[in-house]
Structures are given as structure tokens and as C-alpha cells.
């Protein structure tokens, strides 16, 4: 018998596969394709204190081996989430992480205070959304600023606190250590890489914000390296994210040190991809005679 359970920040996940924020909405759409209770967890679409309409212009642009996106944190706001989306998510037998974004420390704190009073299993603090002009990204680039944000949020946060890191950080290892020192219970990395595209005929950037976030298999080797380096440098669990398209990619991240993985862009090309990856991990463990995930975690 194999056991795929993993524990991150006192929260038990039935398997190490989590649907990544921003690619899975609030679960309803994918819930039409499979039982969400099969997932290890779900990280919600990035939430902000107040409703956001998101960015104008082109929001999705395909590139080789991935996509650039500039959605701009379109979301209904924390209150609407709690009222309209949470009741549905609470019914699913899976770990629920509320992904929280913001442009000021005050905004993060107010959002987290509201979520403290709900049944979400944990907070994933997004200090790294690249598609919001004000704040967000700045928090995710400078370790000292991230430290302050996490420290202040930690003071009020009654839930397990996972900090989602940007690969655009000046020094991802130092960033991770600062977040750990500030009291994070876990880290998830990486968010999208800052990138861009140009329409050569109009001689203009494709995106209104000029820069956009790159995800997909094209970022996987760099994401894997970052997860490897960070896992070695901190004593809190790391969740690996970045272009995971099958169970082999997921196992690579686990071997690099990740406790769990998140699946993002892959959901777009196959709504069943999380299930396929869960099945694949189980088969791999059986074939390789692995009983617990820990046996292969961080073996590199």
C-alpha cells in the first residue's frame, strides 16, 4: 500500500497535487469535469480586499512552450468570495488555500482578518502578482519589503500561512529565508516570470501593461532549480510550481525538495491534468516500491 498524504503547516493533504491560483477559478468550472475531492488541495483565484475588474486589452498570449498572461487579479473581492464561493468550496473534501493579493500591507491585513473567521484551511499570501501596477510585485522583489509584509500579516493571521514567491525576486534564496524568519509556515514557488511580447506590425507591446507573466513548461527548468535551492536553504515546507505537465515533472519537483506541487497552466490544456498527475504519482510509487512521499522528497 502506498500513502500519498503530505503534511504542510499542520495541514494534511491527501495527495501532493494542488490546483494553482489563477488557473482554477473557485473550482466550479473544473468541478463540472471531475470531483474536486480527489485533489490534494485548491488554491483560489487571487483575492483582494475589494473587487477588481482586472486589466484591459489582451490578457492571454501564447508563446513557445507556455503563455504570457496579464489578467490583473480580476476577482469579486473577499466579502463576495466568502458569501458566494466559499460555501461551494467548503463542501469539497480537499484542502482549501485562500490566495490573497494586495497593494498595501493594510489591505493584506484586512483581507486576512476576514479570512480568519472562515473555514479556509490556510492562506497563500501572494506577494508576487506581476500584473498589478501598484504594489504586489514590489513586495515580491525586495527581501526586506517581503519580510515586513509577512511579519505584519503573521501578527494577525490565525491560519497556516504560506507565502507565494516570485521568481523575479532579486535573490530567491534570501527572499525565502526572510519569509521564513518573518513567520511563514510554508513557501510556494514560483509565480510567473516577468516577460513581454511585441506586435511588430502595430509596433506596440501586446499587453497594455507592457509586461506580463510567463508560465508553462518553458519555465520548468528554472522553477525546478529555484525550488531545489530554496528547499536546501529553509526549514519550512516548500510547494513547487512551474510548468508541471505530468507526473514526471511533479516527481522531479518532489525530488528537488518540494512537499507538494501546484498545477497551473496545465489545467488549460487538459481539465483532467491534476487527476492524471495524481494517478501517475501513485503508479510511479507502486512501480518504484515507494511507500511514502518522504522517501523521495529532496533526494537530490
Amino acid at each position, binding site marked *: 500500500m502506498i500513502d500519498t498524504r503530505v503534511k504542510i503547516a499542520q495541514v494534511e493533504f491527501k495527495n501532493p497535487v494542488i490546483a494553482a491560483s489563477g*488557473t482554477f477559478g473557485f473550482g466550479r*468550472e473544473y468541478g463540472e469535469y471531475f*470531483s474536486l475531492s480527489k485533489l490534494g488541495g485548491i488554491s483560489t*483565484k487571487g483575492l483582494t480586499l475589494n473587487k477588481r475588474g*482586472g486589466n*484591459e486589452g489582451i490578457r492571454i498570449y501564447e508563446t513557445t*512552450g507556455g503563455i504570457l498572461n496579464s489578467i490583473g487579479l480580476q476577482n469579486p473581492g473577499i466579502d463576495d468570495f466568502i458569501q458566494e464561493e466559499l460555501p461551494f468550496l467548503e463542501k469539497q473534501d480537499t484542502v482549501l488555500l485562500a490566495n490573497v493579493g494586495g497593494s498595501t500591507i493594510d489591505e493584506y491585513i484586512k483581507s486576512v482578518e476576514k479570512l480568519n473567521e472562515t473555514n479556509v484551511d490556510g492562506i497563500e499570501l501572494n506577494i508576487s502578482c506581476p500584473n498589478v501596477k501598484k504594489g504586489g510585485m514590489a513586495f515580491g522583489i525586495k527581501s526586506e519589503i517581503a519580510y515586513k509584509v509577512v511579519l505584519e500579516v503573521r501578527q494577525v493571521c490565525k491560519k497556516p500561512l504560506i507565502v507565494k514567491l516570485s521568481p523575479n525576486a532579486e535573490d530567491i534564496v534570501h527572499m525565502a529565508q526572510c519569509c521564513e524568519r518573518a513567520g511563514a509556515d510554508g513557501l510556494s514557488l514560483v509565480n510567473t516570470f516577468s516577460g513581454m511580447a511585441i506586435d511588430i506590425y502595430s509596433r506596440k507591446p501586446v499587453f497594455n501593461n507592457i509586461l506580463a507573466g510567463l508560465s508553462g513548461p518553458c519555465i520548468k527548468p528554472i522553477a525546478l532549480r529555484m525550488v531545489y535551492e530554496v528547499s536546501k536553504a529553509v526549514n519550512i515546507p516548500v510547494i513547487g510550481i512551474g510548468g508541471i505537465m505530468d507526473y514526471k515533472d511533479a516527481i522531479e519537483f518532489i525530488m528537488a525538495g518540494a512537499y507538494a506541487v501546484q498545477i497551473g497552466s496545465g489545467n488549460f*490544456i487538459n*481539465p*483532467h491534468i491534476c487527476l492524471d498527475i495524481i494517478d501517475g504519482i501513485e503508479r510511479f510509487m507502486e512501480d518504484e516500491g515507494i511507500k511514502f512521499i518522504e522517501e523521495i522528497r529532496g533526494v537530490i
Partner: protein
Amino acid sequence: MKEGYRKVTICSNREIATDIYEMKVKGSGILGDPGQFYMLKGWLGLDPFLPRPISICDISDDKITFLYEIRGKGTGIMANLKALDKIEILGPLGNGFNLNSKGNIAIISGGIGIAPMIYTMKSIDTPIDFYCGFRDEVYYIDEIKKHANNIYITTEDGSVGHKGFITELFVPEKYDIVMTCGPIPMMKKVVQMCKDKVPVFISMESRMACGIGACLGCSIETTWGMKRVCKDGPVFSGEEVIFYD
């Protein structure tokens, strides 16, 4: 539970005008309403990365017809597929046209926007006036002639029909309901012409990733806030869509 991507078999795939292809596929679960679409993936591996949203042009005898224009790498690969090749499809997706429409109906299409309007035309019992605009080459005209009450054709170069834009021939006052699909400037013009005169329904196009409403990549601004073209649309009331200049 809805079915995920499934393989279907290509029955035919032919170029009917320059860079315009008609693909017929058959397989299990061939269904859909006029105005709905499928996500299509006609290649193995991850390049191109995203599937392509293609509207239903027709469904008959357990076959779906997709009409598509080569716009880039994905549709370019699709154009090279042959009969008996497999292609993966997800759908039907989105919300189509309301077919219970009564009275005098006009359909207005521009270019490849003709695709969803063929199935729509065939599914409505009332006689329809079909206005179709093209850049130069025309296609699917015979099919329209078989079903429509009247057909109006324009080409921008004047090679077939009236020279100019299709909106130059359209007279909104003659109709009780208008349905349109085509380039945004054309649909915007149609909506303006119909304002305060006749209800108009438009099939929107947008760059999509997931196709099922999760990623918000295809969102457009409407009078009801941001709406997803893939899930809330692609068919919207003309009055609710906010067009930009």
C-alpha cells in the same frame, strides 16, 4: 460529469478558399447548439501550447463541421491534417443563440464569422435574410442560398456582390431580431445601427486559454461587469457589450 478532451476522427479537411478550411469530424458525443464552440487540439505534445477555440459550423449525420481560417501555428497544423487523422476536442462549450426567435430575422456575418451562423441559420424555422461580407473570396454561399430567404453579399474588392462593407446593405428597420458574428468593428457598427430599433445578439471572439471559464483570459467588459466570452458567451446581447474605439 462533463467529458474532457476526447479523440475524434477527421472525415474530411479541405481548403474552400485561400486559408479557409472546412473540417468534418465524427466520434462519440457529437452535439452542440448553434453559437457554441469546441476547443480543438490537432497535434501531439506541447507546441502549440493551447488548444484553439473553433465554433460549430454545422452538425449533421453524427458529424461536426468546423470552419476555420489559418491565423497562426495551431490552425496551420490543423490545415495539414487528413481524413482518418485524429484530433482532440473539448465541448460543446459556452452559450449559443436563442433559437426561439420569431418574426423577421437577419443574420450578418463578416469573414470567418460566417461559421457559427450557418448552423444557426439551419436551426431556425423562420425564413432568414442572410447578409455576408467578405474581403475578396466568398465561401459557403450555396449553402446559404439553400436555406435563406434572401442573401446579400459584399466583398471589399467588389469581386462578388456589392463592393464595400456588409453593413452598407443592412436595413435594421426591416427586422425583429438580428444575429451577428464577425470582426469587432463590423459588430460594433451593427449594434450601433440596431440601437433602439431591434434587439441584436452578437457572437464574440477573444483569446482563450482554458475555454471553460476558469482563467478569465477572455473576459470582456459588459454593462453587467466583466464577463467570460467562453462561459458567459460567446453570444451576448449587443446592448450589454462595451466596445472600445
